[in-house]
């Protein structure tokens, strides 16, 4: 199965969720800022990355896990991908997960300062703080996704 986690920039919440899915982060405790920053793509994307489906890894069940930044396409984006997958006859092989629902305003502010304004020195500590605050919610989301993927 192909699992795509998507958020606004494909840089923070989707990357964190994909990392939880791939067991690159611990789930019994909140990860440190260093652990978050060590993740591939975490707070490292540019404007050119919007819309690119990037492979994060393969989970223990052989599911490929991707991240994607969709900008302001909102939840409609899940339906776009699912609809096109249906036309290709692969809708059962694709799981599209919107991680925006767990994005808090601290993450938005930090992400904006780091990625949009281009001041990672100021934005990164803020976005990491926000991601740590949202972490347990993302763990819960990933658990649900894993159950869905198993069926």
């Amino acid at each position, binding site marked *: 199965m192909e699992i795509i986690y998507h958020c606004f920039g494909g840089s923070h919440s989707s990357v964190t969720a994909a990392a939880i899915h791939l067991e690159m982060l611990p789930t019994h405790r909140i990860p440190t800022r260093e652990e978050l920053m060590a993740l591939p793509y975490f707070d490292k994307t540019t404007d050119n990355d919007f819309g690119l489906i990037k492979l994060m890894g393969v989970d223990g069940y052989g599911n490929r896990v991707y991240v994607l930044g969709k*900008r302001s396409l909102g939840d409609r984006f899940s339906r776009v991908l699912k609809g096109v997958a249906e036309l290709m006859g*692969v809708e059962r092989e694709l799981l599209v997960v919107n991680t925006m629902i767990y994005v808090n305003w601290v993450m938005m502010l930090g992400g904006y300062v780091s990625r949009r304004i281009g001041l990672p020195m100021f934005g990164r500590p803020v976005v990491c703080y926000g991601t740590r605050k949202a972490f347990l919610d993302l763990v819960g989301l990933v658990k649900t996704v894993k159950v869905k993927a198993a069926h």
Partner: protein
Amino acid sequence: MKVLILGTSGVHHTLVAANMILSRFQDDFTGIDRYCDVQLDRRGFPIYVGSDEEGRHIYTLGAGKEIETARKALEGLFEVFSDESRYFLITEVRIKGEIWIRLASALARVPLGNWLNRLISDLVLKRQIPLIRAQAEKIQQQMEDLMRMDYRRLRMGTG
């Protein structure tokens, strides 16, 4: 083969182009099924318009102002499912004044909005018919090329 015509809206210029490809457009928007149906567009699913005599299915899809992001994501999805996307053509129809179409779509939410949506869309699209027709012809050419390529691949036994 399936053809997906991507645009800022799936029920305005893309729908006109799809009807041109299917030889259904008679220089009049009133005859176009689901024309200006903004609610359908907002659902986000590809809209089936019809099939031509070769059995090629034509769909439209609206992505709003994030059309570039959507196009890249769909191309990425085709790479992920490369086998299944072999008979799939993704293409775009763009016009001048797309911002007016977006405004018309947004207006559809308010009272008398559907009437305004229709009025603005008609005004904008009437001026863009030659541009839409040129793009529809280009898409038809792409469809023919893809069919020829497939035929060649099958003949060579590499399909």
